[in-house]
């Protein structure tokens, strides 16, 4: 087995080392332009895509090279088991991946750690491990795409969504899924690596391992294809699509109006002097969009790719202040000398790390804003580098916390909390010598979790806040409300409307639920568990939801179709009882995506059963 692994390693070693050297050269070049460990989301995505693309290509290529008819016979026809042959090839592949993709990162990190004052912490090294693990995962999917008889295996790339969409605050919960999936894929690859690659997997455990993620991929595919072909496309062709023919009293209809005219539509049925006044003022008002998106604040020991802002940079002292997750303080480094120039804790500046006390350490990782501000979920700080002081600019109390970061507008700075929209004066926000209080503190009319969008109209005597969203009044209850905030700070409700008509039928609006209620629920619960607060639904929230009757009816019908469909599949392929039990159970849980998985994981043509050999059938001519 080792000999085979060595042979495979020798085959690609030059490529692996060449890629490693190339990456090192790229890292050195990037480090000359900007700090290597400062990554924007786009840069991280580019690195990930490159790594995963290369890993997938290698995974496919490695097995495809062996799969050629005579090469395959040469590979598998030897006195070692197929599992050992596979592990030899896979082991070599993993080592090569590490050399090509992991080693350059590791060398770069070590170089920065040892030869520079750049903060390199465990989380940076863990990031390399995380990246390599994910590269291995994609490599294994590449292997499986070639090894498995079903072409649908390519859908397993959806596993990356499960890993990357919810970002758990726990390092363990970030690594656990990818490591578990690697073991699952190793098992599937080992089972798929059989002398005859045209054989489909039949063991119940393998079927379950393959079906669940594949159903997840087919679920999305099903939604896209069915809604496009059965609904959107015919409607577009017939010229009756709601996008081109907006229906009054639907949420979509508000986009028919210019922002200045929108209050008139929202307040159509509100015949009060205040509403009429607002409608008239809004026509001349300047409108700003205030973001209520949940901002993912940095977390202690998070993998470094999540560093949305790298450091505070003070131009005058030519120093850069990075946050150390290990020491929970900001560490200053002179950009001229590369030496450390001090430490900034939550009580102010400290001479060195050795002198940092427990009170100096931040309890949570702050998010760095611009040149001198940073914030936590409850506080906004401002640094005065000239006087070496730190001021707590503003604090929230009584369970209130920021859900976003301050957004600078022409006349004010707006920031959303879980309870209010706060508007600050711009000049006070920037003044290094004073604390600030919001000029306006507008309470949310609905829970911050259902807040979707807010338009702020600057009026002559205050602001008109327009809240609207698809879940404004609850699940599947879109609506809009308007509030007038006087210059004095007093808030008055102007009016609103619930959009009781819908552009699309329920089975389109709730397509994911309709096609597989279990997958819909499982996705929400899993993602909410891994990363709460970003809009996924918990089990308790799901229980509160009432889907429209049409969506429920269609879901039941599709489930029945799936059940009978899988019975037909089992009979057609003359499956063994264990297989039948597995597929029926899977379809009962997964619904239509489960049936599609069953179709894709079985041959299109029905195989004839080989007859039992008997001595009588021998014939020598």
């Amino acid at each position, binding site marked *: 087995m080792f*000999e*085979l692994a*060595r*042979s495979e390693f*020798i*085959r690609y070693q030059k490529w692996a080392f060449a890629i490693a050297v190339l990456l090192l050269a790229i890292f050195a070049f990037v480090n000359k332009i900007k700090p290597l460990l400062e990554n924007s989301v786009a840069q991280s995505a580019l690195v990930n895509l490159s790594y995963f693309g290369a890993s997938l290509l290698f995974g496919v290529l490695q097995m495809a090279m062996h799969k050629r*008819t*005579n*090469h*395959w*016979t*040469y590979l*598998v*026809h*030897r*006195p*070692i*088991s197929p599992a050992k042959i596979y592990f030899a090839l896979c082991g070599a592949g993993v080592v090569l991946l590490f050399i090509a993709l992991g080693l350059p990162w590791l060398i770069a990190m070590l170089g920065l750690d040892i030869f520079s004052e750049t903060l390199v912490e465990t989380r940076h090294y863990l990031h390399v491990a995380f990246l390599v693990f994910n590269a291995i995962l994609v490599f294994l999917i590449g292997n499986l795409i070639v090894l498995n008889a079903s072409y649908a295996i390519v859908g397993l790339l959806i596993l990356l969504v499960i890993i990357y969409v919810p970002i758990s605050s726990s390092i363990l919960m970030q690594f656990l899924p990818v490591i578990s999936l690697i073991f699952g894929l190793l098992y599937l690859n080992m089972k798929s690596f059989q*002398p*005859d690659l*045209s*054989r489909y997997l039949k063991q119940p455990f393998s079927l379950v391992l393959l079906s669940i993620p594949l159903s997840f991929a087919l679920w999305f595919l099903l939604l896209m294809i069915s809604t496009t072909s059965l609904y959107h496309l015919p409607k577009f062709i017939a010229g009756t699509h709601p996008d081109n023919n907006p229906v009054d009293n639907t949420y979509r209809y508000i986009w028919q109006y210019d922002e200045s005219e929108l209050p008139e539509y929202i307040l159509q049925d509100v015949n009060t002097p205040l509403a009429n006044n607002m409608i008239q003022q809004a026509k001349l008002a300047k409108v700003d969009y205030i973001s209520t998106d949940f901002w993912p604040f940095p977390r202690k020991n998070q993998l470094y790719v999540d560093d949305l802002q790298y450091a505070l940079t003070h131009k005058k002292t030519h120093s850069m202040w990075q946050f150390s997750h290990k020491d929970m303080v900001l560490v200053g480094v002179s950009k001229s000398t590369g030496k450390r120039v001090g430490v900034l804790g939550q009580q102010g500046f400290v001479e060195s790390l050795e002198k940092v006390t427990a009170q100096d350490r931040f309890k949570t990782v702050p998010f760095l804003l611009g040149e001198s501000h940073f914030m936590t979920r409850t506080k906004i700080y401002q640094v005065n580098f000239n006087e070496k002081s730190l001021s707590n600019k503003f604090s929230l109390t009584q369970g209130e916390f920021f859900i976003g970061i301050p957004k600078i507008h022409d006349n004010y700075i707006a920031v959303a909390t879980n309870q209010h929209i706060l508007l600050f004066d711009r000049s006070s926000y920037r003044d290094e010598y004073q604390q600030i209080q919001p000029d306006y503190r507008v309470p949310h009319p609905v829970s911050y979790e259902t807040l979707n969008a807010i338009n702020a109209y600057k009026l002559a005597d205050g602001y008109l806040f327009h809240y609207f969203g698809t879940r404004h009044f609850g699940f599947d209850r879109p609506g809009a409300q308007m509030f007038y905030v006087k210059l004095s700070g007093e808030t008055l409700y102007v009016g609103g409307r619930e959009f009781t008509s819908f552009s699309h039928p329920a089975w389109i609006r709730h397509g994911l639920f309709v096609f597989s209620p279990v997958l819909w629920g499982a996705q929400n619960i899993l993602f909410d568990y891994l990363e709460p607060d970003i809009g996924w639904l918990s089990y308790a929230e799901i229980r509160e939801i009432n889907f429209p009757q049409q969506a429920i009816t269609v879901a039941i019908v599709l489930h029945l179709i799936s059940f009978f469909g899988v019975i037909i599949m089992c009979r057609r392929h003359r499956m063994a009882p264990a297989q039948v039990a597995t597929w029926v159970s899977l379809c009962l849980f997964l619904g239509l995506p489960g049936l599609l998985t069953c179709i894709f994981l079985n041959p299109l043509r029905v*195989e*004839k*059963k*080989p*007859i*039992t*050999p*008997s001595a009588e*059938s*021998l*014939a*020598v*001519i």
Partner: protein
Amino acid sequence: MTKHCIETFQLTKTFGNKTAVNQLDLAIKTGGIHAFVGSNGAGKSTLFRLLLGVATPTSGSAVLLGQDCTNLSTEVRGKVGYVNEEHTLPTWMSVEKVVAMQKHFYQNWEQNIYDRVIGYFDVDPKQKVAGLSRGERAGFNLSMALAQSPEILILDEPTLGLDVVAKQSFLEALMFTEIENDSTIIYCSHQMEEVERVADNLVILEKGRLMNNSAPDEFVERIRSWVVDFDGKPLDKNAVDGLLSAKLIDGQHHIVTLDQTDASFRQALNKLGAKDVQPMGVTLNSAVNAFLAKNHNVPA
């Protein structure tokens, strides 16, 4: 040791609408060199793939050294050598490293056999496999296959594309080792002169079906060639029993037949109006060619 090292029972393999192996019942006796002959697409390579378990029968079954081919153990795989026409080898490795690797896999590795067989070919151990000529690579492949001391050695058109000298070396090495070792060799080739030299048994496949499984001499015995003079009259082909081919050359009909005895066939021809009937000698090459050409597709 079982009497038959290879057995197939109603073995069938289809690829879509094409049937590569068609209800094949075959039994290959242990020992000797068995030549597998057939036109392109006759199902020879598919049969070998089925025997090695890298393809699964559509129906029927195959048994190799007493074991079902769809589930061959590592032990049986160690007893069966395989050399294909491409001489697939790890081209990125040097000859000596490939040999070192093979030694690890095969417990019965016979270094002296390897040394003797490789002696027929000019192969530098330090050279990369990619740098070997086709003949050298074929020789190297055969050397390793024989050194594994296989009970069955399957050679699928091993001399394809080799020059005369390389082919000669290959055949000599093969024959020499067959004497040394009581193994069964399955030799697939389109070269009848090779088959004539090495084969103890001749298996003919046509359109996935077994057409012959006997000694080459016995097969040749079944084929007769005649030159018949009908005095300018045309030959009624449907009236000739066992007719494989008939050609009119210089006014005389050259006829090849299957399973026709001299006396009765001569009598039958005379009844059809033959003026003169002369039996001719038949070589294995011409016999096989006539046999295979009978069902060869021709444009309508």
